[in-house]
């Protein structure tokens, strides 16, 4: 009986190890294929030149620029809004219907499929507000998509600031807002910024929402205003990999584009994680 239980345990633990090994293998296999096939495509010209000969040659510069514009546009809208909302939720709101409604809205926005955000952006920004298929419409759509990420990360950062800090400041007769501004925020800001950094990765990789709100198949020149259409890295990859007559011919460009996307996302994650851990250590001290 006893040895039976021990045997079962061995088998079970073996299976758990195999499962974990498989998950790690998925990560490694995906990274390996993209990196090993993509690195030879990447060069200075690849990231600084326009596509040539109907996108079968040349670089991906306009797609990089487009993605950069989307990052700037959506972060500029979502970061202040998300941070202020997080301050309200952690520092001011009291349990009740209003708070419940805000929390519920954030949870549901976080779980809404990105293509639904695309439909919304199309109906509201492109059509109703008349922004057209443009950088502006796509940035606003993406801003809504990342708003819950930024709010959650900011709330978490604010909650790690010890209560004693606030109480000490309030006890000195400092007003609530002054306390938040001078005492709470300085220690919470790095954590709040982490959320914004993480959402850069999200913006860079999202395809479905921009597909419906302004991403272009190909543009001969860079966008000249926020009302212009744009090229973007993820959509560029999708287009090259699925449509046209030269899919096999442009495979190196596809791998190169996928690798650039992967590098952006991984760098962003590494930066975010190191900011967070650096600052957690500082707070502990």
């Amino acid at each position, binding site marked *: 009986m006893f040895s039976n239980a021990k045997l079962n345990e061995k088998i079970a633990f073996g299976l758990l190890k195999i499962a974990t090994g498989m998950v790690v293998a998925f990560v490694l296999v995906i990274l390996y294929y993209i990196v090993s096939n993509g690195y030879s495509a990447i060069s200075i010209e690849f990231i600084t030149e326009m596509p040539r000969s109907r996108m079968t040659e040349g670089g991906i510069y306009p797609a990089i620029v487009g993605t950069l514009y989307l990052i700037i546009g959506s972060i500029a809208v979502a970061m202040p809004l998300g941070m202020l909302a997080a301050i309200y939720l952690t520092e*001011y709101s009291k349990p009740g219907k209003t708070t419940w409604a805000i929390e519920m809205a954030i949870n549901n926005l976080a779980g809404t499929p990105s293509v639904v955000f695309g439909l919304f952006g199309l109906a509201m920004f492109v059509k109703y507000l008349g922004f057209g298929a443009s950088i502006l419409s796509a940035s606003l759509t993406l801003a809504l998509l990342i708003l819950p990420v930024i709010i959650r990360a900011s709330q978490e950062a604010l909650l790690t600031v010890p209560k004693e800090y606030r109480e000490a400041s309030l006890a000195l007769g400092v007003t609530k807002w002054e306390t938040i501004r001078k005492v709470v925020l300085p220690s919470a800001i790095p954590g709040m910024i982490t959320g914004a950094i993480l959402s850069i990765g999200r913006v860079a990789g999202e395809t479905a929402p921009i597909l419906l709100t302004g991403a272009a198949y190909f543009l001969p020149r860079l966008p000249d205003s926020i009302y212009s259409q744009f090229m973007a890295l*993820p959509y560029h990859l999708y287009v090259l990999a699925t449509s046209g007559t030269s899919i096999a011919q442009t495979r190196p460009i596809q791998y190169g584009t996928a690798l650039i996307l992967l590098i952006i996302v991984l760098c962003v994650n590494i930066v975010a994680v190191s900011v967070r851990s650096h600052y957690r250590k500082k707070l502990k001290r």
Partner: protein
Amino acid sequence: MLNRQLKEKGIESLLFAAGAAAVLALFLLCIFLFKDGLLLFENYPISSFLTDTKWYPTSEPEHFGLLPLLLGSLIVTVGAILFSVPLGIATAIYISELADPKISNILKPVTEILAGIPSVVYGFFGLVILVPIVQKTLQIPTGQTALTGSIMLGIMALPTIISISEDAISSVPRSIKEGSLALGSTKWQTIYKVTVPAALSGISAAVMLGVGRAIGETMTVMMVTGNSAVIPGFPSGLFAPVRTMTATIALEMGEVPQGSDHFHALFAIGSVLFITTFIINIIANYIKRRYRFNL
């Protein structure tokens, strides 16, 4: 003094407005989505939308049947869950209960990489690597099948399932586990008779959120499932191309004239998708909240 109070009030109102913006955003999203979706039913009966088995948006007469797309989403999602739930929970147990803390600290960020990879990159990987493998292994005419989509979506749902299950499992109090071990149970008996049941509601929330992630995924399924709008059989449909709700919206929206019935039909599909994920989220959050109070 009065000035100071006024400023405090003003700031509080501003912050409240920012919080309320989230509610406003969700409200507007519903309005705009449902408004354009409901316009379909001016010209096309809602009963046909719900029961017609054909999605032929450009034929004469047009067929806007939800069923093939809904079932397409369902079969891909079920496949993904069958594959990722056991794998995800097993990994979560290993990370929180068995692995050396040093190894856990490496494993956690490694699994988080999966959450960071953009869906279009998964789609590309699936298309270039997995599709040919599926085709060759199963000896079928095309590797773009529901199964291929399920595997890719399963991998994509893993980080959600792992991280939330792991949270739930590691929040089970040590005293409960030690009690079980003290009674002479092995470590494994303790895990599957005590720890996992205690964490079960958290794990279910993780599974629900994984389902939500899989149903809403667009680019990956669009690139690897072949996109043919037929009602899939089960399980034979796993080995044939399918078309999901998400892929339909993304594929067809570029080509429809704005304001046409087809345009509104895509919004109707979007509304169904939104309502589905909305319900899933509500359930997941309800379960999660319950377990938080219990422990």
